[in-house]
C-alpha cells in the first residue's frame, strides 16, 4: 500500500468513525495537535476533542445524519475528499443559523476537504469548505436566490 493509499484509507476510516460516533477511533486517527482550518472551528476545543464536539453537535441537530464519500484522491501528504451529507433537523434547534425551533426539514448538501497527513498517516490539519448557503436555504433560514 502506498502512502497515498494508506492516507485515503485513514480518511475513509475517520469518516466512518464520525458516522458511527466512535470517538476512540476518531482520537486514534488524528494527531495530538490536530488543527482544522475552517470558519467556526476556532470556537471548538483544540485537537481531536474539537472534532468530536463538532460531530456530536451535528448529531444533536440531526440524529439521522448520514454521509457518503463521493470522491477521494491524494498526492504526497495530502488527501482531497468530496462528501455528501443528508439529514433531517428533528433534534435540537440550530441556534447558530438563527433558528429558535427544530425545523423538521431535510437537508442534502456537500463539502470538500483537503487533509494533511502526518508521516504515520494520522490527520494533522484539514481545510474544508461546506455548502452552508444550500443547507440554510433547505432549512428555510436563508432566502433562495432571487436575482442574478
Amino acid at each position, binding site marked *: 500500500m502506498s502512502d497515498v493509499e494508506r492516507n485515503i484509507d485513514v480518511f475513509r476510516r475517520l469518516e466512518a468513525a464520525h458516522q458511527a460516533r466512535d470517538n476512540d477511533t476518531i482520537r486514534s486517527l488524528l494527531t495530538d495537535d490536530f488543527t482544522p482550518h475552517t470558519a467556526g472551528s476556532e470556537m471548538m476545543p483544540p485537537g481531536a476533542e474539537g472534532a468530536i464536539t463538532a460531530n456530536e453537535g451535528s448529531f444533536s441537530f440531526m440524529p439521522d445524519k448520514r454521509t457518503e464519500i463521493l470522491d477521494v484522491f491524494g*498526492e504526497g501528504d*495530502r488527501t482531497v475528499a468530496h462528501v455528501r451529507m443528508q439529514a433531517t433537523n428533528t433534534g435540537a434547534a440550530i441556534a447558530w443559523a438563527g433558528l429558535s425551533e427544530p425545523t423538521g426539514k431535510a437537508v442534502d448538501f456537500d463539502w*470538500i476537504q*483537503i487533509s494533511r497527513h502526518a508521516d504515520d498517516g494520522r490527520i494533522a490539519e484539514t*481545510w474544508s*469548505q461546506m455548502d452552508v448557503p444550500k443547507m440554510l436555504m433547505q432549512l428555510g433560514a436563508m432566502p433562495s436566490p432571487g436575482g442574478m
Partner: protein
Amino acid sequence: MRTSDETKEILRRFYDEVFNNRDLKYAEASISDNVVERNPLDPRMGNDKSAAIATIQAILDNTPDLQTEIVDMVATSDKVAIRARFFGTDSGKGWGVPMGAPATNESFSVEGIDVVTIDDDGRFTEHYGLFDVPTMMQQLGLMPAPG
C-alpha cells in the same frame, strides 16, 4: 500521461487568465462541452457548460477588481484540487443580490476549494467547488458574525 505538476500548471494558468486577467474566452476554451458543473453559483443555472460559464461570469461581474492567490494544490494525472484566496470589492451586480441586497462596496478576502477533472486534451470535464460564503457575508456586513 501527464504528471501531477503538469496538471497543476493547467489550473495555475486557468486561474491567472480567467480570474486575474478576466479572460472569459480562455474559460470557454478550457472547459469541455460535456462538462458537469456540480456547484453552480445559482442552482437555477443547471449543471452544464453554460452553468460553469455563468458561474465564472457572475464571480467576475460581482467583483470588478477580483484577484486570486493559489495557496495549495493537490493533483493526480487527471484531477486537481486548488485551495485559493479570492479577494476584491463587492460591486457591480453585487454578491448580496441573491439575498436582496445591493452591492455594498465593501472588500472581502475568503478561501475556496475547487476540484477539476481534466481529460487527455487538457479540457475540464467535471468541476465541484465551494467557497467560504458565511465569512464573505460577514465581511460585507450582510450577516452577523457568530457568537
